[in-house]
């Protein structure tokens, strides 16, 4: 595909971003316009309850190349991204949260994808600005996932990613209800690259997760992507059951020989507490997985789209520079002029 024909799509999930969406859109289009002949900015509204949709609708009348997809309610960021991915038409798809500090990096990320990498992960070089508990928790999480569970999880990858059409199509074939894009991108394989970036101070993350949210996310990622925790508690249960079997034998032998077993209440209390804690732990892990099975087995659509709106100004009408026109003509491969049947029917020729 000639580079000049390359279409770049940017997918951005929005959720109550009334205050920042205008600045973000102008930042993104400010980067896309000079860099790409063909692009689209797909904004997915994830059931915002504020004026996000009104703000974007107003932008549609003046800014070219925007599509607004409104989900029927709030489905969550990952599902919003998934709906955006299934709607984009680009050869390369940039996924990002509405963080204006990142838009400058789009051209470099896309260039790497064009260089033959199907998945380019945006990776935060440092977790500067995150609270200490999150930094420690994140390192433990990645250690656990990678070393203990053997998960293929790109460390410190943010939502910022560039995917080739091939990778997007592969990801769209995965119908999981619980979706974590960076893990899916890693899972589908293909050629990947990590693009480390540092957010300038003042351009922090849009928001940092709270403890409960971070824990839920961590558990969700683990349960969705690995059955090793099940195996671990399974082994543990097997070991303890062997131990308790041995103890049973020991007690039985003592009784047969008519010997005393010592102070009974201490042993019983210890046994009961130990066994219950084990059983409850197994139950807790099991219930997480059973819940997932139920969720995944329900054959429901991932999301519902309320409506799609498009810029009323088309990108192609903004009068592109001659440079692009010239390069198009060289690689057009013998596009021939359309005759207009002698009438003022207008013909555009590239």
């Amino acid at each position: 595909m000639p580079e000049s024909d390359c279409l770049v799509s940017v997918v951005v999930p929005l959720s109550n971003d009334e205050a920042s969406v205008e600045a973000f859109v102008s930042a993104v289009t400010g980067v896309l316009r000079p860099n790409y002949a063909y692009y689209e900015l797909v904004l997915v509204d994830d059931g915002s309850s504020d004026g996000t949709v009104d703000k974007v609708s107003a932008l549609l009348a003046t800014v070219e190349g925007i599509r607004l997809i409104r989900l029927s309610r709030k489905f969550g960021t990952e599902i919003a991204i998934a709906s955006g991915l299934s709607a984009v038409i680009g050869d390369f798809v940039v996924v990002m949260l509405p963080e204006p500090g990142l838009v400058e990096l789009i051209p470099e990320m896309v260039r790497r994808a064009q260089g033959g990498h199907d998945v380019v992960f945006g990776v935060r070089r440092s977790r500067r600005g995150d609270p200490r508990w999150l930094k420690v928790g994140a390192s433990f999480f990645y250690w656990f996932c990678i070393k203990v569970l053997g998960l293929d999880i790109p460390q410190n990858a943010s939502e910022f990613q560039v995917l080739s059409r091939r990778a997007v199509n592969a990801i769209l074939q995965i119908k999981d209800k619980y979706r974590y894009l960076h893990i899916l991108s890693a899972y589908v394989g293909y050629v990947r690259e990590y693009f480390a970036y540092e957010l300038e101070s003042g351009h922090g993350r849009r928001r940092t997760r709270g403890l409960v949210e971070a824990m839920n996310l961590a558990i969700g990622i683990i349960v969705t992507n690995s059955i090793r925790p099940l195996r671990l508690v399974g082994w543990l249960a097997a070991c303890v059951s062997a131990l308790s079997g041995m103890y049973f034998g020991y007690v039985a032998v003592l009784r047969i020989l008519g010997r005393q077993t010592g102070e009974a209440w201490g042993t019983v209390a210890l046994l009961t507490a130990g066994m219950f804690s084990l059983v409850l732990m197994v139950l807790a892990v099991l219930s997480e997985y059973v819940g997932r099975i139920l969720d995944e087995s329900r054959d429901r659509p991932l999301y519902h789209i309320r409506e799609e709106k498009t810029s009323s100004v088309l990108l192609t009408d903004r009068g592109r520079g001659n440079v692009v026109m010239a390069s198009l003509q060289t690689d057009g491969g013998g596009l021939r002029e359309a005759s207009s049947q002698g009438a003022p029917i207008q013909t555009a020729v590239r």
Partner: protein
Amino acid sequence: MELIQYDAIVIGGGFFGCCVALRLKAYMERVVILEKEDGLLLRASYANQGRVHNGYHYPRSLLTALRSRTNFPRFVSQYAECLDQGTDHYYAVCKGEAMSKVNATQFRTFCERVGAPVTRAPKEIRDLFNPDLVEEVFQVRERVFDAVKLRQRMAKDLDDARVEVRVRSDVVGMVRINGAQIRVDFRSGGRSESVAAGHVFNCTYSRTNRLLAAAGLPAIPLKHELAEIALVEVPPHLSKVALTIMDGPFMSLMPFPPRGVHSLTHVRYTPHRSWLDVGQTSVDAEGLLREKPLETSCVYMLKDAQRYVRSLEDARYVGSIWEIKTVLPQSEVDDSRPILFARDRSLPNLVSVMGGKIDNVYDVLFEIDKCFLPTGEVRVDAGV
């Protein structure tokens, strides 16, 4: 200045104007068509996908679908030699996640309800489509007309019926004279000329309101779009195939017989600009078409089309045709395509006629018959 007298003047020599003139000829002697361009059927009658509707397109407007079902066989039998031969027509229904407003079951039920033939497409056609996006593909009975053949046919019919046609005649003004007469002033080859008649029909489609303004009449609310139809060469296995994807922001690919290529339109990318006529006509639509060069959106249309039909990666863009598409604003809401047959109280013998589909013409002719037939009589012949 000589004032030539007619019984009826039809302004606009598109398909509707020609049919209206032919029908009027059945009721009166002297009928003339004033056409701004160099020939007949050169504008919107040419610059469209050539689809002869058979109802399938309007699962959300039962009335429009039923009217299409009624008009389809009439058009097909009357203009048989102007229709493209041997093309198979398919409608693919998208999945809900892909933003379709109907699903396959609803589409099939709808077709059965309006009596439109529908069968599951053969496997080799179904396999063309991406199963992630498309729920089901149906084979349907639709046709494509060849606008150039239709032009020749209309020219012959008008000639046979001895309807006068004046091309390069751009109407600039209309005034009421002698009570019920209307004088039409037009420019022809740099000269100003005038004709007068008791009945004037405004069949100028996107210029409807320009004509009304020329008569000093208020505008009818109309919505216009600068529309692009991309012409593409398709791989051989698609050469005799017409594909339409339903029902949302999707594409449609059909043979375009006048050029031997396919026409590609896309709900999202075909309209480049849209505007409403508010009060007096505000946007210079003709000026938009002259604005050169108009930048094609074909890349967008093709990229999206390729998501649905992978083999379109081998399609090659060869050019675009541009036209001002006009619809009644109410069509935007319910997807209906009623015809406009309107007259202003202050000049009742000037009738503005507008329709969005070529086969709608029979509804127009029905209205004309109602005007000129003695009360109670009904014309039975389907022909013009």
